């Protein structure tokens, strides 16, 4: 199980800083920074810049995403914001609006 879980129904307004895996199934407005993996669940609504080792998005995210490893937008996921990552995938059925920087 992930180190930190923001469950469905829970809302965080503010900054989250972590050195462990963070799973967001609820709502977040602010900023999320982790040195480990971050995943945004399908029922989530997030308005935040997110930085993580890798970031997986299945919910609705508005904000810039930075990940040294990879960013994945899952089917049904929606991202409005810029992505900076070494690897980036957008699944069939996902939506994305923003710029991509793969540091080439």
């Amino acid at each position: 199980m992930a180190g930190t879980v923001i469950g469905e129904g829970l809302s965080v307004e503010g900054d989250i800083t972590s050195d462990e895996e963070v799973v967001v199934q609820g709502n977040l407005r602010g900023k999320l920074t982790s040195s480990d993996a971050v995943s945004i669940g399908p029922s989530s609504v997030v308005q935040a810049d997110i930085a993580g080792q890798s970031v997986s998005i299945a919910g609705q995210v508005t904000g810039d995403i930075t990940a040294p490893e990879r960013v994945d937008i899952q089917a049904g996921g929606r991202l409005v914001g810029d992505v900076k990552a070494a690897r980036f995938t957008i699944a069939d059925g996902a939506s994305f609006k923003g710029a991509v920087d793969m540091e080439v």
Partner: protein
Amino acid sequence: MSRLSSEVSVLGPATRVTGRVSGEGSLRVEGKVRGDIQISGDAEIAAAGNVEGNLTAASLDVSGTLLGDVVASGPVAIREGAVVRGDLRATEVSIEPGSRVSVRLMNDFELDLGPADAGAAAKRR
């Protein structure tokens, strides 16, 4: 609390939250929270957990540190090793030996001044 349901949120030991945490379900704090917590379910502050802010929950179980006021619709348990400072409003409060507590209890119940108390009062006269 150990249910792996999505209704139980966990702020892990390596996680710090600055801001407001609110909503449905229960919450276990193993890390650090600076800000108010307002949830419909049970709150637990683990031994390494640290909360600086006011807390509203159905119940509260503290083994860590809590600096702030508490409003609980159910019981509040302050465990061994806990550090708690603030006003407590709850249906019942238990404080274990080995905890450091500086609180004002504002409990919503009438003290039942039974026969034992009446006897003590008579003795004083």
